């Protein structure tokens, strides 16, 4: 057996799924090398035979055939091995030093394109990105359908290569941003980017930022709309969503799909999201401030009913609300973790039984349960899960400040959050940037 095959075999034979198969193609002895978990050997061989037959019928030399099938290499064991790992098929021509790297028919390992799992669309396109990066890029290409779309791909990581693709519209995207992105990617090309934290590190974003620099979306339609507004999309292989840069505050309130509704309804929906974020941030803090620090702000009737609902509650308002908020966070986290079939049960146990029992046991007041329900519901109106999580975190800052300084603390908490958001930027583009020209819908 040839030296090359021997070498590959010695390196890969520990793998049960490594397949070495002898065959004949156009009257030449060949050896097929590859992983049978990645390569569909039966189909690939059928394709090869068909190729060879048509070549033989036209009486062309086998050399043409080899070139047509794939990339010819001589020797170069390392390249052959890495190609095998990538899911390629190596066709070694027996008794020579040459082999061909061929793109085989691969086994079906990817999901087909399905409806989005984490983002709901009411009236709009229903397909979503999947894990396969090529499929994702394909979807975007199909939607943009223009020569302006530019795609750059990078292979990143030290040993395990990971594909990273950068898509933008020529002439629309911010050149400053592109330049910064490209230089950071090229500089840190060897870093591991299997998750968003890794990618953020590669792009030089601070790791202690409470708000994600990436706006993620599963919906190709949204991603393309962002492209048309001059944003940039990043795809990472095996991550089923697009990363949109730069991420802006307004993305919390605006979803592209809103534009499928009449304008007044779109405005109403977006104002509801703004109200939602305010309620999430303010109500828990407001409860603490009004109940313990500034009860004089309440109307006397309300003050009495609040006092009545808190009658017999042993803890101060801060302890009470933190206690319930933590339980709520636990329920949220548990329902993410649980299988879909058990999820509703936990919601019921947590929401109804626990809520009712905790009031009956006089651990917390009735009013607090209402406040918590309002907070949680309002929190879900925010667009984008990443943003919703950040806002969930911010409300604790306000609760603590409100417990110390009352209404003053509540307001100063809002100011602190506002200042923090204003301090964020992506390569110089402020997080609070709002396009006021009002012509973003037509993409120019």
């Amino acid at each position, binding site marked *: 057996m040839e030296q090359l095959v021997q070498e590959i075999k010695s390196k890969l034979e520990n793998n049960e799924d490594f397949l070495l198969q002898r065959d004949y193609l156009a009257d030449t002895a060949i050896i097929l090398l590859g992983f049978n978990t990645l390569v569909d050997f039966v189909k690939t061989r059928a394709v090869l035979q068909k190729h060879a037959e048509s070549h033989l019928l036209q009486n062309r030399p086998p050399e043409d055939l080899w070139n047509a099938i794939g990339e010819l290499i001589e020797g170069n064991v390392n390249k052959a091995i890495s190609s095998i790992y990538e899911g390629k098929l190596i066709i070694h021509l027996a008794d020579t030093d040459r082999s061909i790297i061929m793109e085989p028919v691969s086994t079906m390992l990817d999901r087909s394109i399905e409806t989005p799992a984490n983002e709901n669309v009411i009236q709009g396109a229903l397909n979503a990105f999947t894990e396969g990066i090529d499929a994702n890029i394909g979807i975007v290409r199909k939607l943009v359908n223009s020569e302006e779309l530019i795609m750059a791909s990078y292979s990143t990581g030290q040993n395990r290569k990971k594909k990273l693709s950068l898509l933008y519209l020529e002439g629309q995207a911010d050149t400053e941003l592109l330049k910064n992105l490209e230089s950071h990617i090229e500089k840190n090309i060897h870093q591991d980017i299997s998750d968003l934290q890794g990618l953020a590190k590669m792009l030089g974003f601070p790791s202690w930022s409470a708000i994600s620099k990436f706006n993620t979306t599963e919906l190709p339609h949204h991603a393309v709309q962002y492209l048309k507004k001059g944003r940039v999309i990043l795809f990472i292989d095996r991550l089923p969503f697009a990363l949109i840069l730069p991420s802006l505050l307004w993305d919390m309130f605006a979803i592209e799909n809103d534009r499928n509704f009449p304008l007044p309804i779109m405005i109403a929906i977006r104002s509801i999201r703004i109200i939602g974020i305010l309620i999430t941030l303010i109500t828990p803090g407001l409860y603490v401030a009004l109940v313990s620090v500034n009860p004089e702000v309440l109307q006397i009737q309300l*003050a009495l009913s609040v006092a009545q609902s808190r009658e017999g509650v042993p803890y*101060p308002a801060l302890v009470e609300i933190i206690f319930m908020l933590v339980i709520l966070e636990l329920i949220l986290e548990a329902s993410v973790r649980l299988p879909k079939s058990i999820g509703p049960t936990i919601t019921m146990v947590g929401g109804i039984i626990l809520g009712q029992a905790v009031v009956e046991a006089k651990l917390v007041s009735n009013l607090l349960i209402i406040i918590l329900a309002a907070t949680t519901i309002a929190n879900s109106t925010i667009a984008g899960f990443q943003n919703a999580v950040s806002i969930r975190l911010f409300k604790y800052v306000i609760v603590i400040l409100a*417990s*110390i300084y009352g209404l003053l603390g509540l307001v100063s908490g809002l100011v602190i959050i506002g200042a923090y958001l204003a301090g964020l930027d992506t390569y110089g583009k402020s997080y609070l940037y709002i396009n006021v020209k009002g012509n973003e819908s037509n993409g120019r």
Partner: protein
Amino acid sequence: MKLFKPKSKASITISLLLAVIILSGCWDIRDINHRVLPVVVGISTTDDDLYKVFLKIPEPVEEMTKVKIVSGTGETISKAVDAISRNMESSVDLLHVKVIMIERKTAEEGVKDIIAGFMRSREVSSKALVTICDQDLNEFFSILSTKELHGTTMLDFFEKNAGWNAEIALTRVWEVYRSIHSYTRDVAIPLIAAGKTTTYEQIGSAVIKNGKMVEQISNDETLLFNAFKGESAHGQIEVLNHASVMIIGNNMHHHSELTEKQPFLQSRIKLKVVILETRGKTTSATIKKELSTLLTGRFAEMMAKLEESEADILGLGQFYRNKITRKELKNWRSEYYPNLKMDMQFEIDIQNEGYLRTT
């Protein structure tokens, strides 16, 4: 001596956060259910010149609020409140006081100190209403405690969207305080007593001049006072010989003149009314005429009474502020006001005659 040099941003941040907690004094905060929130404060003076303070406290008791009345005495009001607080299981918090009730006897002696005290301490909102009790406060509150009262009754009595009526004067603490220090403006304060069938009864309004009660006006006159203040007489019934009407809106124009220390004021008050009831045969013209004469007469009567006591509750002096020098202004009540000549005209505009025309 070595200067302290912070090692890093983190240590600065931590010490700042600690300062936030240490300097805040947040351990003094009492939750709302550990405070008692009196709605009414009653103030009277005892024979040996001590203040006796009554607090009307709504108390949540199983699905409803009951009223508790407590009292204490002291040399100052805050001392008296403190005495009450000491003897109660929760601390007294005057922030929610909406009504301050002063005994008539005390009001006649003067409320300057009481009002100034409230303004100074800021514990009671300066928007709290001031009323005068025409009864002995002991008696008044003991009658109240025998009645099954809802938690906020006294407040609702004055609340514009609840029991308020255009014949009740609404005067806040800050307005009384202003009148004490103003040359040209006095206030009217409702006179309240325990009612026979209703919980409360308004007897009229007390006229307060320089912090002392000097005169009393009737309920009808209070309506005029309110109408003049633009606290519109909305929703008010006026009974004539032939009809009763409801005032739904009013506006006025004044023209003031001053010739040789003789102030002259021309006022035109335009009332929009709706006819509610009629007796016998009447026309809108008669109603207009009669209403106008009735109001003019009533107004003149009230003015005579007020001029005699030199109390300017309508704030007519305000119209002469730009005509009299500051030095002279302080004599407004004694020299100018009693000489004031008024030409009062009521214009009645009947907005809705009901079915009067067809029947």
